[in-house]
């Protein structure tokens, strides 16, 4: 009777220990997965943040270039307006038939000039896309900062080393292989020359 009872107890203990071991193994593999995830996040989150900042900067540069061109064209439009007024003055001195024909053409040119000026002002107004997209990207960057902070907390809790190092060395290039550092045309030309193209 006592012998059976001891065997049963040992068997139960063995089963319990086996379950416990299984649980410990699963936890260990889970922790490994968390560590891998945190390490991946430690690299990709700051890289994404850097990329977003770079996009904002590129958009600003592009917007400024377009606006500089627009400002020059608008200045030419102002000059155009003055020239058309002079032309009107000259045409008013012509005989009736020529004056009417000349004024009709000048009027048409003025209408075209006004229309294109309005359209250019519309382009100007819509350049605010940079500001609007920039504000949205800023919010995305703030969200990424929150994720980064949470990853940092997890890394601290689980004693994951190298987290800070990886986060600090994030660069805009090599973002999951999707985006790489852009190269200047000069660099591309040099590279092509080196490659014999």
């Amino acid at each position: 009777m006592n012998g059976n009872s001891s065997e049963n107890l040992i068997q139960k203990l063995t089963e319990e220990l086996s379950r416990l071991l299984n649980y410990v193994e699963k936890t260990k593999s889970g922790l490994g997965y968390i560590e891998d995830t945190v390490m991946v996040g430690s690299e990709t989150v700051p890289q994404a943040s850097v990329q977003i900042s770079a996009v904002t900067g590129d958009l600003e540069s592009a917007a400024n270039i377009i606006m500089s061109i627009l400002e020059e064209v608008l200045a030419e439009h102002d000059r155009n307006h003055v020239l058309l007024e002079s032309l009107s003055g000259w045409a008013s001195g012509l005989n009736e038939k020529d004056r009417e024909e000349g004024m009709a053409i000048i009027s048409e040119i003025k209408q075209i000039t006004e229309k294109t000026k309005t359209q250019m002002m519309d382009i100007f107004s819509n350049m605010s896309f940079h500001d609007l997209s920039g504000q949205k990207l800023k919010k995305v960057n703030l969200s990424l900062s929150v994720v980064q902070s949470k990853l940092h907390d997890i890394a601290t809790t689980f004693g994951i080393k190298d987290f800070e190092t990886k986060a600090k060395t994030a660069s805009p290039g090599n973002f999951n292989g999707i985006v790489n550092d852009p190269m200047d045309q000069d660099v591309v030309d040099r590279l092509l020359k080196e490659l014999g193209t």
Partner: protein
Amino acid sequence: MLDNNMKILVVDDFSTMRRIIKNILKEIGYVNVDEADDGSTALEKLKGGGFDFVVTDWNMPNMPGIDLLKAIRADPALKHTPVLMVTAEAAKENVVIAVQAGVNNYIVKPFTAAALKERIDLILNKLNATVA
């Protein structure tokens, strides 16, 4: 009486946006324009005197537009300065907050030159009517 010679302060943290507003203001006849990149810089400039009108963004570092508006309304020397809020914050509660803080008008980005002119004219006509 405010007119086309009035001095306007454009406040926005994005240089591109300040450039857009300045060009649109020029196009609609306002050439006396200065700029600031946040509320606190704007407030310093305003305290220096000489400004007749403020066009400000809402979202800015250091001092957002809504705080600039409140500071203007709280300053006895500046409290009557017209303020036009130009912002991407189109939520109803933002408009309500701005109106409660004493904004003269509110325009949502992106906007056309005609829309900006219309708001400025509305503000000036209202103010001129009050003065008369």
